[in-house]
């Protein structure tokens, strides 16, 4: 039983450990903003070059989501597209397997 589900158990343990690690770091690091590492990278570029971040302009025009809400909706859409593919094909495989059994 334990051996049969060892990867499921490992995955759950990894998720729990990850959450625990997050709770620990967020309580220890009082000033942690949990900003995206992309932004941290960009501010590091401006630190190295001495050019303020505002002076970096897109080389190619880019649409920027008007608010964080809209951006998170589009991120959810990306995950949903992936979820449809994964669910669709796993379902297809599952169905094929059931058919063989009959």
């Amino acid at each position, binding site marked *: 039983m334990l*051996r*049969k589900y060892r*990867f*499921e158990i*490992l*995955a759950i343990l*990894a*998720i729990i450990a*990850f959450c625990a*690690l*997050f709770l620990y*770091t*967020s309580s220890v*690091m009082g*000033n*942690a*903003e*949990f*900003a*995206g*590492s*992309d*932004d*941290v*990278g*960009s501010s*590091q*570029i401006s630190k*190295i*070059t001495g050019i303020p971040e505002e002076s*970096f*302009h*897109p*080389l*190619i025009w*880019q*649409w*920027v*989501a008007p608010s964080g809400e809209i*951006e998170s909706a*589009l*991120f*959810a859409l*990306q*995950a949903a*597209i*992936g*979820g*449809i*593919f*994964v669910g*669709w*094909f*796993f379902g*297809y*495989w*599952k169905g*094929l*397997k059931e058919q063989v059994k009959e």
Partner: protein
Amino acid sequence: MHIMEGFLPWQWCLVWWLIALPCLALGIYQLKRVLKADREALPLLGVTGGFIFILSSLKLPSVTGSCSHPTGTGLSAIAFGPWITAVIGAIVLLFQALFLAHGGLSTLGANTVSMGIVGPLAGWAIYRGLRDTRVSMFVTVFLACAFADLFTYVVTSLELALAYPAQMGGVGSSFVVFMGIFAVTQVPLAILESVILVLVFKYIVQLRPGILVRLKVFPEGMITAARSDA
């Protein structure tokens, strides 16, 4: 791992685009051939590609007090190799550049090289190195996925360090700084991602072992043994 639009000088954008394009062309060629040879490859592509879509949309907090996202490219690199993975990676990155302002069209070449090409290439190299040894299939998958994720961020750091060498210490010291931002943040995420992808791989082995054998992902004996074991 996205280099934001405008944050890479145009000369470097061009360099990375020129590296990315032939890899993408090779990927599209291979993709056509694989799908033509075996219709069962399409569902596997859908599942492995779907996980790239899902995992790269999740921005997770990490030990450095910043957030980053896993890449999910390892499984596809194992099943289809790095070039086909580059094509899926580029599609995801294009979506993010167009709709999410994460990375941009000028930096898409650089971001494709890190997440789509070199990361998966590193994972694939680990997988090829371990495939025919006695190392467990699942350990191989775990390590390949973890390296595909981590190397993506190593390459992003390198791309930024090359474009922005520090005044003191040059490219090397710049690289260390960017590694501190990107790669360190990524370690716990890479572990979490790989544990989950191992689980996904187990389900593929249980449901559709035939396609893994036909694509020669792992030797038949190994897959049969894993099926009776799980």
